[in-house]
């Protein structure tokens, strides 16, 4: 008996093994989805060869039936995995009629772009516009009167050292200059408007200064001015703090400290915390009573604050630009990065 049992075992095992070899070979040679389907019906279908083999187990003894049955079921699992693999492989390599090469680049319309200074100027002026400040502009070639005198910087005032000035060569006038800041618009706006005033003034300014990585003789500035009854230093802080949150993010740390500019009193330097240091980004202060009076405002009735900042400097911080000279060199390798 032991012998015959061995014989029978061997026979049945061979059948499972044979079926496996035949099935794998047939699967390998199936080339289309149609042929794969034929294979599936042939081997795995309800009347397929694997089902036939399992049905044949009925004639075996209970122990053998268990062994052979387990082997056959294992084979079913293996063949199902192989089959699924072949089906998905077949689907991926097969090109449907009318297929296109979707890896080719699309027809992208060429996108132009704004200069980075314009981008920052727009962003900053918009932040102030939303706080009720209107954007206005003024002349770049300016009278000494507006650039200095009306701003409480009379001729030969030592504070004029803060503003190295380009003067215009003219036969008839010796009081024309390139504005050194956008502040002359404080005087011009007040001269031609009644309070309340809330303006921001972007524009080009010029200083007689040698050029290096952090200095340019031409640069943009954004001036701000708010004048009305009851405007206080606390309003100045609140407005500029809100600006900093808008431009540098809601968690930006800001510092206000005492500084001096002839056209404000008290004077303010606003710095932001940047990589562990405090960096000055803006000069500000309460409009000096003399500036109000010079423009014809009653300084016992009105107060106001003013501020000024350099958009290129802010862009240099945020965009990590080490050299200010990039801004007006207009190299496409620079411009296309913004």
């Amino acid at each position, binding site marked *: 008996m032991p012998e015959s049992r061995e014989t029978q075992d061997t026979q049945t095992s061979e059948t499972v093994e044979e079926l496996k070899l035949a099935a794998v070979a047939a699967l390998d040679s199936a080339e289309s989805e149609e042929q794969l389907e034929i294979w599936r019906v042939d081997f795995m279908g309800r009347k397929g060869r694997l089902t036939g083999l399992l049905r044949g187990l009925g004639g075996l003894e209970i122990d053998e039936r268990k062994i052979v049955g387990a082997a056959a079921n294992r084979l079913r699992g293996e063949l199902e995995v192989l089959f699924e693999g072949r089906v998905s492989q077949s689907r991926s390599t097969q090109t449907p009629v009318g297929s296109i090469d979707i890896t080719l680049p699309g*027809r992208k319309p060429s996108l132009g*772009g704004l200069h980075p200074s314009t981008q920052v100027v727009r962003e900053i002026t918009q932040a102030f516009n939303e706080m009720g400040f209107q954007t206005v502009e003024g002349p770049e070639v300016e009278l000494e009167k507006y650039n200095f005198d009306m701003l409480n910087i009379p001729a030969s005032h030592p504070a004029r050292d803060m503003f190295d000035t380009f003067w215009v060569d*003219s036969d008839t006038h010796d009081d024309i200059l390139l504005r050194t800041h956008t502040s002359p618009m404080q005087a011009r706006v007040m001269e031609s408007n009644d309070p309340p005033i809330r303006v921001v003034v972007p524009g080009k300014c010029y200083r007689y200064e040698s050029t290096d990585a952090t200095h340019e003789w031409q640069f943009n500035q954004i001036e701000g001015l708010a004048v009305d009854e009851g405007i206080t230093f606390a309003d100045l*802080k609140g407005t500029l703090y809100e600006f900093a949150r808008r431009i540098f993010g809601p968690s930006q740390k800001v510092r206000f*400290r005492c500084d001096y500019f*002839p056209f404000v009193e008290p004077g303010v330097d606003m710095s932001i915390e940047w990589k562990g240091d405090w960096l000055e980004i803006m000069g500000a202060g309460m409009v000096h009573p003399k500036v109000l009076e010079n423009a014809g405002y009653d300084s016992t009735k009105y107060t106001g604050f003013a501020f000024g900042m350099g958009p290129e400097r802010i862009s240099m911080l945020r965009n990590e630009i080490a050299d200010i000279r990039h801004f*007006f060199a*207009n190299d496409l390798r620079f411009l296309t990065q913004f």
Partner: protein
Amino acid sequence: MKVPVSWLSEYVDFEMSLEDLAHRLTMAGNEVEEIERTGWIDNVVVGHVKAVAQHPNADRLSLVTVDYGDGEAEVVCGAPNVAAGQKIAYAAVGAVLQDAYAEEPGKTKKLKRSKIRGVESIGMVCSVRELGIGDDHDGILVLDDDAKVGTPIGEVLGETVLDIELTPNRPDCLGVVGVARDVSAITGNPLRQPNVEFESKGPDVNTLASVEITDPDLCLRYTASVIQGVKIGPSPQWLQDRLTAIGERPINNLVDITNFVMFELGQPLHAFDLDKVVDHRVIVRRATPGEKIVTLDDKERKLGSEMLLIADPERGIGLAGVMGAANSEISESTTTVLLESATFHGVNNRRTAHALELPSQATLRFEKSLRTGLSEVGLRRATKLILEIAGGEAASGIIDVYPGKGTEQTGVRLDRDHIKRVLGVEIENRVVETTLGNLGFELAGDADGWDVRIPYWRPDVSIPEDIVEEIARIVGYDNIPTTTLSGRPPQWQPQPEMELRARVTDALVQAGMREIISYSATTSEAEARVALPADMASEVKLRNPITADFAVMRRTLRETILDTVARNSRTWRGPIALFEAARVFLDYGEGLPEERQMAAGAFVGPRNDLHWDASTDSSDFYDAKGAVEAVLDELGITATFETGEDATFAAGRTAVIKVPAANNVVIGVVGEVAGKVFAQFDAEVETATMFELDLAAILKVLKGREATVKFDEFTRLPASHRDLSLVVDTGVTAGQIVEISNRNRIVTSATVFDLFEGKGVPDGKKAVAVRLVYQSPNKTLTADQIGKIEGQILKQLSKELGAELRAQ
């Protein structure tokens, strides 16, 4: 301003760390840029010279045995002044010292064990220069005898210096006492004022010298003292150290004292050798034009009539508040000193210093219009120090010529309400009074506020807001609350010029162009490259251009845009399509120039980025024209392009842009840049096309026009289109065909969609395909009706242009 902490500590105490103090000073307006530490060097200690012997192989070198506390070392030394028994700075091997022989200062050198002329030297005895605390390198630094051997050198020589970036309104802080006063206000600790009391037992000062001011507008006060029997010599070590620590070179005791008091109190002083002053008479007067004086630096200066001179009856003996003269200088033989402490006119002093290119520490202070009260305090302080240090006897009394007496503002009224009005917050009376008191303001309070007396060291204070700032900066801006603007925002006012520029800019960006911003200044020669018309307005010239490249303000954007595309063509291989919208400056000789807004754009290189399905053709006229059309579409302007002439552009490839609805006003030009113009820009491409739009002219066209688009109800009746294939002479333009086709009001559009010359078309002719769209507003057109209209159009095209239908 450099403020050594040891010096500062003479006048005020502070418990907080130096870093905290620096922060508080910064917040209060005196920005501490750096805390510098000098004299602290590792591996350098106090040593004792036990013995000095001759170097066996070199006459000028000696072998020095140094006890450095933990042992002894033998050092080869070249200093002539080394002697046994001295306390010196001993640098052990490994110390990093200043390289005394380096060309550029600040270079350091690590000390190694070495053999000098055959003898091993372990370490070094240091000079002042090697220690980095001064320039002297003639010999070694000899320390005080009581210095303890083995002590790290920093504990003996180390100094910590606050480097303060002062604002121009605070001349008081150009003296250490001024900074100390701020520290006093910050900490609440009392200020120790320098002592200014001295004994004067000599003869009446008026019998020894006299002072006369003949130009009182330029000298508000002149105080002077006379000290007889002084001994000129080197200053004591403490005084030399004070000056060295702030970077000043000690000269002699008299000069050092005047410098010391200037850096202590902020009052510049000058000492004369009275015996060299003719008749002992000092006259303060304007120089006569062309008058000459040899200043202390041995240079002869030619003076102008607005320069203030200190003179004796015969000659100038000093440039007031700028520099002394060689003829009355303190020398080793001086015994009688006339000490001057005056208040000169700030602006005048500054102008003189500028004109003579003689910036000085004195002018740095005088130009800030010092108050007259400071001069007397400075005089008394310096006189006291001279008596202490240089000996001698002070004459009784001081000379005080005071034409400015009573002309200065003495006080400011500060109403309580005003503080809140400016700051937006109430400050308690107690805080106001303590803060101002600590800053040296005397207050007389009443129910509504205070009468505040302006101290003699604060010329910057004149209005209530100045006092409010004093309170706020010491209280701390951080402690003032944050509020938002509560008032009514002003009425909005249109800004058409700015808005137009933004619209044009956005349209050009949407058309695929990139914005540039270039320099507003250029040169006449550079601008001449684009052949501007001769009748153009003059250029705005700069009186003081920073370089020859930027001498005039530009009158056109054409030159910069061509320069920019040309430069980029050398490094950028893709399409280059750049524009700028900016102002040009036109001088009509009537005060300020016209600042005219213009926009200009240029195209060079390929039209497209390299792409599998895009042409590699270069951009051409139609790219520039397309950009213009995009702008006109955005603005809702219907314009015509007419053949035009412009010296910047190539003949026959240029169009002038006109607006028929506005009397054919010219609003711009577009074309291919003339070859001889573009050749001057050194580009790596052959051709450029460019447009220029006159935004000021466009603004006029738009003026009075309805700004908003009015919707035009479209007809729902179907439109029909028919294509015509025509043959015309090559000289016939698309514009002519379209214009004739459009005359019929049933034709809603006529579009040229194909052009062909060559095979199948006779020589001198071209084939043009036009699509006509027919639509009636009130009925559906039948084929017959369309055919009839088409026939009429063909007849007209034939009659006016000689057009024929192309045989199919």
